[in-house]
């Protein structure tokens, strides 16, 4: 089947098999290997991307379902060499070790913050329940997400702008 998907701002039109999962389309056809596969049961969340602005596990979406949609991956977050506030917060708070779960964790965190711009610890923990990490014990991830919430500013990526609209906040950060 022929599908057109806009990924990280670039439009791609490709032939895909009906069974192809979005994550495999991204990785194998489009070379977007920043999004990774950690399990085959949709439990780990490592493959989380944004589909039309909302987080999805890209292993549970068929590529054909993304036809005509906009996909943002971890590779499309930084803009003009500036990290997205959530990316920066992960670095600032040592929220990753091996880093394999990190793209999915970051994408999920951004969506979480879109829903709840200032979550408490429990809300972050529950919001990240579908993303598994084996290295960090989550504590620094939780810290990073709460830290990022205080630092959202426009211009760091499309999702940050969306969050800012929700929050009606001009410029964040310190």
């Amino acid at each position, binding site marked *: 089947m022929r599908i057109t998907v806009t990924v990280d701002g670039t439009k791609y039109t490709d032939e895909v098999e009906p069974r192809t999962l979005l994550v495999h389309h991204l990785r194998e056809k489009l070379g977007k290997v920043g999004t990774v596969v950690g399990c085959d049961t949709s439990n780990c969340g490592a493959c989380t991307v944004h589909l039309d602005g909302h987080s999805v596990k890209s292993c549970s979406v068929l590529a054909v379902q993304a036809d005509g949609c906009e996909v943002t991956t971890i590779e499309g977050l930084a803009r003009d060499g500036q990290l997205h506030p959530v990316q920066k917060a992960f670095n600032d708070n040592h929220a990753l070790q091996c880093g*394999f779960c990190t793209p999915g964790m970051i994408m999920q965190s951004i969506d979480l913050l879109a829903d709840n711009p200032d979550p408490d610890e429990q809300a972050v923990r529950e919001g990240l329940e579908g993303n598994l990490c084996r290295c960090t*014990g989550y504590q620094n991830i939780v810290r990073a997400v709460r830290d990022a919430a205080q630092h959202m500013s426009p211009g760091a990526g499309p999702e940050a702008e969306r969050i800012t609209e929700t929050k009606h906040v001009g410029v964040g950060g310190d």
Partner: protein
Amino acid sequence: MTATIEPEVGKARRRKEDERLITGRTRWTDNITLPGMLHMAVLRSPFAHAKIVSIDTSAAKSASGVVAVYTGKDLDPDGAIGMPCAWPITPDMKAPRRPVLASDTVNFAGEGVAVVVARTSAEAHDALEEIDVEYDELPVILDMEAAIADGASLVHEDLGTNTSAVWKFDSGEAGTGGNVEDAISSSEVVLKRRFRQQRLVPAFMEPRACVVDPTGTQITMWAATQVPHILRVMSALTLGIPEHKLRVIAPDVGGGFGGKIGVLPEEMMSLLVAQKLGKPVKWNESRSETMLAAHHGRDQIQDITISATRDGQVTGLKVELLANLGAYNGLVGPGVPILGAFMFNAIYKIPAYHFACTNVYTTTTLTDAYRGAGRPEATFAIERIMDELAVELGMDPLELREKNWIKHEEFPFTTVCGLTYDSGNYEAATEKAKQLFDYDGLRAEQEKRRASKDKVQLGIGISTFTEMCGLAPSRVLGSLDYGAGGWEYASIRMLPTGKVEVTTGASAHGQGHETAWSQIVADQLGVAFEDVEILHGDTQSSHKGMDTYGSRSLVVGGIAVIKAAEKVVAKAKPIAAHLLECAEDDLEFAGGKFTVKGTDTSTTLADVALAVFAAHNLPDGVEPSLDSDATFDPENFSFPHGTHLCAAEVDTETGRVKLRSYVCVDDVGVAVNPLIVEGQVHGGLAQGIAQALFEGTEHDESGTLTTGTFADYLLPSAADLPSFTTDRTETPATSNPLGAKGVGEAGTIASTPAVVNAVVDAVRQFGVNDIEMPLTPMRVWHAIQHGTTDAGGPGRGEAGGGLGSIDATGGAQ
């Protein structure tokens, strides 16, 4: 004058590694695509034990996109290839050959029987279904005790037994302590317990993978491995590939925890297949395959006897283990319980000790190293039985520990196992932990809840621990029949611009070597943190090494870096003296500068590097090089320690456990990067707590793994864990010049018994003195309902036994 420069070591530096990891510009093995690359998929046995009658690959061979299909007989017609085991623990260890692909029998569910190589991964997996294998089922052997009973069915008929080896240590015989039987028979209190270490899955997030490219002048293999150097030499030895014709690269590796320490049949298959086809081949496993076929950890039955005086002085410890190896020996699998042998005595002065371990074959996935390897198992047993002993003696469990531990002023201290602990301060760590935890306050609350028969009861769990880190001293490893040394290698290349390239043999998989090593080198050479590049995980650039496991990277590999840096400075000094026209003895080196003592005259290391590059004006006989390399092989292990305290709330109506607070104070010696140390402790705690509460593999009676996906095997999420309070004391190691002790395993080792002790403490008033791990709500509820369970409970097929699970309370009783 020496410049005052803030030292890098000790700074909570943000990690260099993160930039690529948070932007998705990472090089995982599965990201590697090469021109003409083919994909390999493995057909795995659905049976735990069966004879292979026939394999028909004809349909698969003609399937779409399929380039080749191979069975074991195709890849290894003479049956000459055996997967390596580097730790034959006894001279008479029974070791079956582990083939690359099973040809005659399959010995665990998940063992490979054939491979398909195809244009795409999807086509390769499709074609697996076209392979027709006829099996003749054989008896399944899952239970260790049944496996070693008379008349048991055998995993490997040709071995004539399911016992691989029996390894013993006896302090009376070794002359390091007394006779344990005498101690037990003459002591006032004797307590005997059986603990189980359930089987766990290391569950690194990146599944295993490798890519083999045979098209160059040498074969290049990328692998998701912890041990690229060991993988290269073992591949050479196993397959006869000339070592210099093989380059192994561990690119970014998504976690290991010991689970990527193996030399894999799939890696050997990929090498064989790629060479046969003359094309690059990629193998990438699914999570279900990882669960089934990557090695598991733990899986021991521990029979522990401890003896003591009525006033709480421990007099003897006897440990009898059954260790489940699975169907074959992993690379270091047989040695895992042996590492534990030296840690059952923990931080205590135990005068008599006996250890015996029987390694057993069963028709299950093999076991091998998993975070802590042997030491968490040992710490669990001693810390559980110390709590039970405290109850038996009517003592506070902390008081019992204090009474028996090695006092700060007694270090260095040689234990009953013959190890010399170089330094430690158990008092300081415990005192700090107690204060952070509010030990007395929580004990008071516990009493109140007990008295009021609150439906939510509170338990307090204690775990003090030490471990042997820095798996290194080659002579010691040799005495334990380990097949390699434990040294580590580093090199430093001073570049003409004053920047520094450092190679380390310690290959990282998430630990932050690039950051920590940069901090060390910045201090040693007086260069900027940013001016140091750390190269690792490639046998071509960092051409020697023993890789990363057992918390050895920093305390062995980091010291090799220091040694190499010292050589660079020593090489630079005569050149600097020549440039400054002074005597070498007049120079001092600090902050990256050689300064003539008592003057402002100086030259920098960068100036020397440039002078070396130009080589126009060097002293006679000095070669134009500031490169250096070094190996470090310490005389002793290092011994981090700590005190962990856990408060658990148990809902007595549902059995649900909630961790109310978790406090740990670890002493890892000098912390090069406190941020990394804290992160490692957090991750370790999560894994240890997960063993206590959530994780455990289960097989059905046919040997099928029923916890074969992340949907069935409960890896904790953020919502399942609390926030931890972590702190440190710092008692420098004396066994290395950095004073570091290692941290990777600490959290895992200490947390499991802390949590179980807390839960048992919460429900002890119901007659409970043990609950088998993982402490699921069902098991905890069951324990409360039935008064006690020291084995069994739902999930083990039968209800736990009745009262009286203190098997022996001897002596004065």
